[in-house]
């Protein structure tokens, strides 16, 4: 079974600074997707960034980028130029390619606070 581990329950960053959120996962599959989701107090899960395992290039989305280390099964999220609106819970998630086993497996999440 696949597992996703987020060992840091909380992190804090100064506005405009950079922060890195860590995630490790375990799988025997070679083809899969990894995601970072943001969940603000409004509760809606919002996709921040995705990474396809077969792509060696790290994904980037504006101020968000990942460090994907497939051999180490590590998938960290870097937030640059942190903004007050980045404060939320962040979840790392794993999914196999679409089909019968396309459920998302989430980590426990990390609460990110942004200091003005």
């Amino acid at each position, binding site marked *: 079974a696949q597992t996703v581990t987020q060992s840091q329950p909380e992190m804090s960053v100064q506005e405009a600074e950079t922060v890195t959120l860590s995630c490790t996962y375990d799988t025997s599959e070679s083809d899969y997707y990894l995601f970072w989701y943001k969940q603000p107090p*409004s509760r*809606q899960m*919002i996709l921040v960034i*995705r990474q396809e395992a077969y792509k060696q290039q790290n994904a980037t989305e504006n101020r968000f980028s990942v460090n994907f280390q497939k051999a180490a099964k590590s998938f960290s999220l870097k937030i640059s130029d942190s903004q007050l609106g980045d404060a939320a819970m962040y979840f790392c998630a794993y999914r196999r390619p679409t089909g*019968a086993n396309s*459920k998302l497996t989430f980590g426990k999440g990390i609460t990110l606070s942004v200091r003005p």
Partner: protein
Amino acid sequence: DAGVTQSPTHLIKTRGQQVTLRCSPKSGHDTVSWYQQALGQGPQFIFQYYEEEERQRGNFPDRFSGHQFPNYSSELNVNALLLGDSALYLCASSSRTWGQFKGEAFFGQGTRLTVV
């Protein structure tokens, strides 16, 4: 596009009662998945519906059941409610057949269930 909509947003039930939660998927999506998110935890997969059948199920008892209608909307039913069923219930919709990232999940804002 209204996205994924869930109803109700909040409800309070008494132990032993039954509850039905509803979800309308994003336009064009044919697959609905349900997740339970306990306070301070990551979402846990309950089950997934496609073509009106349960296709995959997580580690949840038979008290949790669901249904998908011909218009792809879905219901989650929980019988004999326990205090431990108090959680945020998230619905996610996806498509198996189209999109750059087939199977990518879009989430609703959830239903907060409190069992007293």
